[in-house]
């Protein structure tokens, strides 16, 4: 499938998900997964406003604590949040603007960064970040596709065909935030029960959700409430 075809397919899937039972966490996770596939495997991350003045992790192809820490500490995204400008083809090692971020990012093997801020009128809704482990130069076509994907993420959150846009946005964002907390708690539970690191625990949980075709947040809550046991998680 060409990238354009993948992009079109993503739009179609978005429309479908808006018609059916819409799970905001899963939807955002799909967007970052598609994005990573379309750009040859960078770590794609959506950070969303918590509506309390900060950006929190909404979805990432690498939700490890290291990446979360990287993107919640001061760096290019904090600048982008204030300026509202996109950051394109940032070569992490040589760009001198964020030394602490560059050191941490390089330490994790990241070489190149691209960041698109997502706005609703004048307010920052979130950021869409690609972190590459190899040098990459995105051209205008790439950027157009990235902007389209950011627009999909925004559309999914706003679903602005309804008049209740502002209320819906608050509902979606806060729901995503709380489901993320449940996912993190479930990672801890499964890690402890399985004697593994939280990153591996997430692979089990996510794998189970995908196999069963169920939303990640709902699976996490089931694990926390004892409705999914370790055998089911590991075996399938």
């Amino acid at each position: 499938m060409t990238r354009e075809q993948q992009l079109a397919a993503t739009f179609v899937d978005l429309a479908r998900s808006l018609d059916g039972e819409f799970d905001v966490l899963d939807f955002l996770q799909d967007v970052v997964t598609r994005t990573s596939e379309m750009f040859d495997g960078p770590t794609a991350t959506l950070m969303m406003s918590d509506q309390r003045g900060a950006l929190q992790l909404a979805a990432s192809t690498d939700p490890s604590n290291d990446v979360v820490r990287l993107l919640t500490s001061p760096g290019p995204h904090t600048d982008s949040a204030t300026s509202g400008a996109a950051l394109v083809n940032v070569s992490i090692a040589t760009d001198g603007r964020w030394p602490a971020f560059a050191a941490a990012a390089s330490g994790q093997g990241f070489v190149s960064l691209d960041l698109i801020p997502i706005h609703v009128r004048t307010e920052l809704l979130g950021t869409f970040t690609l972190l590459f482990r190899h040098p990459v130069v995105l051209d205008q076509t790439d950027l157009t596709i990235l902007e389209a994907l950011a627009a999909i993420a925004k559309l999914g959150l706003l679903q602005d065909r309804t008049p209740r846009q502002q209320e819906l946005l608050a509902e979606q964002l806060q729901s995503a935030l709380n489901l993320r907390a449940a996912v993190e708690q479930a990672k801890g539970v499964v890690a402890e029960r399985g004697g593994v690191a939280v990153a591996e625990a997430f692979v089990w949980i996510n794998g189970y959700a995908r196999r069963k075709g169920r939303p990640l947040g709902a699976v996490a809550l089931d694990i926390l409430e004892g409705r999914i046991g370790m055998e089911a998680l590991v075996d399938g």
Partner: protein
Amino acid sequence: MTPVSEILMSLMDHAHQDLSLPELLCQDACRRLPISAAGIALMNDTGAIEMTVGSDERASTIEELQLSLSEGPCLDAHATGRLVIHPDLGALALELWPLYTPAVLALGVRAIFSFPLRIGGIYLGVLDLFRDAVGRLDPHELEWALHYVDAAVMVLIHLQSMDRAGPRGESTTGIEGPVELAFHGHPEVHQATGMIAVQAGVRLNEALMLLRARAFAMGRPISEVAHGVVSGQIRFT
């Protein structure tokens, strides 16, 4: 000082009055936000909404109405875990809450904002805000409403810790009042909560209380202790 700390300090400043912390929070919210009444519904051990408090007598009546009618934004918010916001209650089709809507309109309420009080799988209750005028919360007001949500979560966690106090009624954790727990941006706090729940064989809310107590005893930030738990250096067995 963070907004949540500011709110919690304000509550402790008013603590000499003969009111519970949740009631004090409801009153504080009415001072800061463009609302006319606020209420908190608290959950019991079986997960049902059992008790309500309000910023004043009218607010308490409005809160209780949802329990006695078994319908309303609070119950929906609790059941779904999602915010329930209706800036114009009168414009709502009655089929949403056929009993509750006319009853609460008759009490003068025109807009409602219900926020579930949760930390992932820890369910504590709901914060309900009411206005006597039609209208949304603007982004700045919503931000402050969410700070009150966070503060309410911490108050309820603190009260649950007090329930487990020692025989003379003293707090076993040594923590005098509700303390701000930094969750946002610290996934390790949630991960540690899950791990402690398994290690100590307790429910998630008790695991969080253990984490909080340990941080207080060690004099370290909760995020740091959480990191210790996740990396295996600190265990709760």
